[in-house]
């Protein structure tokens, strides 16, 4: 009797145990999915819908009529307006014949691109997809270079596309170099470096709108703190606001000030975690500091550098707060970035036009991102 009872219990226990084991081993098998699906679902949920709606909006005109609003399909009208129509000067810029230097730059770039394309086509691992991609990339880069060169030549005026590209490339370069320099200086275990590390983080922590207003205060030549310096230089009666390049410089300085900490912190961490053995070995072998940096340190931090540059680059293309608050895109349209143009258009309820500009930005960033990942990051990491 007791034996039966216990064997019943034992059986029940065994069944439960087997069920549990079955469950855990099943869970273990699908672990891969369990790890990734929540993220994918959340991102999908909030990304597909807006993407599709914006695409549709960019192909339509919005109008308020009796009883509500109507969205009329208009095909590529918004895009045509941006690229060939009334907004072309605003978007692409005033296109003139490039100056001699311009021609030189353009031809050099195009020659380089064609040379690398031919090299790829003749290589071993050429594929149809790869070749197609390369050809498209070559075309787009050439077009962009031509746009840059012809709008920046004398007599031309850069549109929002060129200004945005300028902000991104100059800004990223400066931020990276500054961030790296600061990180190199702070890794040396000098007393007080902890203080510097915290202080250097500060600019990134201020809300971007706040940073923009802060810079507006600072750059005010009348009420701002730099007035004595300005006047001492004899520029009391001029203002950077009236000069397109002065205004652009102000925006870029604000951007660099704000985002250098991002590069700084990531690169600092990377430098801190280098393996000291390699460095010591190199020192013992008689390498000087520059050689150590170039051959030992830099390769170690290259993977992180490429990640952080990619992340920062994608964010930099969306710059809007600084030009908006500092000059509202002025003087004229000199400091207007693509996102700012989309924002201004959107505020007046031209949702179609604004979506079209946003999509052009998306194409541009996707292109630059893919090119960057394929060219730079793949070479540097395996992932």
């Amino acid at each position, binding site marked *: 009797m007791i034996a039966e009872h216990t064997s019943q219990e034992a059986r029940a226990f065994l069944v439960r145990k087997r069920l549990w084991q079955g469950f855990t081993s099943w869970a273990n098998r699908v672990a891969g999915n369990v*790890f990734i699906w929540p993220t994918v679902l959340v991102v999908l949920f909030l990304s597909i819908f807006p993407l599709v709606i914006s695409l549709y909006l960019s192909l339509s005109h919005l109008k308020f009529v009796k009883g509500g609003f109507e969205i009329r399909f208009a095909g590529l009208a918004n895009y045509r307006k941006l690229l060939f129509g009334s907004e072309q000067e605003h978007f692409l810029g005033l296109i003139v014949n490039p100056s001699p230097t311009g021609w030189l730059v353009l031809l050099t770039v195009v020659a380089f691109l064609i040379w690398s394309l031919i090299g790829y086509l003749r290589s071993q691992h050429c594929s149809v997809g790869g070749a197609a991609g390369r050809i498209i990339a070559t075309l787009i880069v050439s077009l962009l270079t031509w746009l840059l060169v012809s709008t920046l030549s004398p007599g031309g005026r850069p549109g929002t596309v060129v200004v945005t590209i300028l902000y991104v490339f100059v800004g990223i370069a400066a931020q990276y170099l500054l961030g790296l320099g600061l990180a190199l200086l702070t890794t040396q275990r000098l007393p007080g470096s902890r203080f510097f590390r915290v202080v250097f983080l500060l600019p990134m922590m201020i809300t971007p709108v706040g940073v923009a207003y802060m810079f507006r205060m600072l750059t005010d030549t009348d009420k701002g703190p730099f007035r004595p310096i300005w006047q001492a230089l004899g520029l009391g009666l001029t203002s950077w606001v009236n000069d397109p390049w002065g205004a652009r410089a102000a925006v870029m300085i604000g951007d660099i000030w704000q985002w250098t900490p991002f590069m700084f912190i990531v690169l600092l961490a990377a430098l801190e975690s280098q393996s000291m053995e390699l460095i010591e070995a190199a020192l013992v072998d008689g390498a000087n500091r520059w050689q150590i940096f170039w051959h030992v340190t830099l390769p170690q931090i290259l993977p992180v550098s490429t990640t952080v540059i990619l992340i920062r680059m994608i964010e930099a293309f969306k710059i809007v707060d600084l030009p908006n608050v500092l000059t509202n895109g002025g003087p004229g349209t000199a400091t207007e970035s693509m996102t700012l143009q989309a924002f201004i258009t959107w505020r007046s309820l031209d949702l179609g036009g604004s979506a079209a500009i946003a*999509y052009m930005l998306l194409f541009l960033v996707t292109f630059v991102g893919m090119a960057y990942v394929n060219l730079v990051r793949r070479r540097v990491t395996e992932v």
Partner: protein
Amino acid sequence: MIRYLFTRRSLTTPSYIEIALTYLLLGLWALVVLFPLYWVFTTSFKLPVDVNMGPFYLPGIDYKPSLHAWHYILVGDLSRDTRRNFMNTVIVAPTSASLALLLGTAAAYGLTRFHYRPRLGAILSFIVCMIIAIFAITLGAPWQVAAGGAFILFIVLLQTIGRRFKRSLENRDIAFWLISQRMLPPVAVVIPIYVLFQRLGLLDTRTALIITYLAVNLPIVVWLMRDYFSTIPLELEECAAIDGASRYRTFWSIVLPLSKPGLVATFLLVLVFSWNEYLLALFLSGARSQTLPLTVAAQNATRGPQWWYMSVLILIMIVPVIAMAIALERYIARGLLIGAVKG
């Protein structure tokens, strides 16, 4: 003597001149960073006349400091709004950052340890069904019906058309897709997201903000943690697996503790992003769930920017984040990502 100053004292210790130079450069940049903040600090104590009459630098000496701005923001007319918005920010930002960290780290771990081969067909049918579901929701159908119907359609499509497209993607494509979510400027997606949350009845709630920030910041977490996980040696996990630990256990008990520095640093970054976000908060909030960045921007009304109020708000906003940064800084130093995992 001069030569002594210039020579390095050992292989790894710099010379005195180098130390001096380092301090000089660091001090210079610290000045560049701190001066604007000092200006904000002094402006918060200025009267409007003081601000408009020209630059005054030293409180007490150049101008008489006044607490009117602090009073207005913390105790006076704006204090109710400030308090409410502050509470909202304090609740929304850390919550969404923690959730992002949880989901994102799991996904990053998955992307470095497992090989995913989603079939193109499956992906396409999934996306098509999601689009149909979402359109049904916006056209007014109750979301349970729409979700259920779409799911059934998905299963059907999967079995039929899904099988046709054999081509599959890889981990790095998934990763690129995730980061590409950040490429579209928020201004283009604000109104669709507004409509989506309106249909779900979640407008003007903190939940909506948390979910949105979660979705927006996940890609960053995934990309940052991916690099880090790829440097943790696999042997540790293989040992654990041999000992019978499940993947979840390995993840939770072995990998995560080893990556604490990276986790903390990523958390800080995502927290800062959510804390300071403006455009989505503006659109998804109404009377109840506004956050602090809105209050900062709102100080620019028809009268022109109220520099004194804005300065106070900026300072209030930075303080909690700085406190957290100081507390967590030592972890950051030891490694955002590429970890020195030494035994």
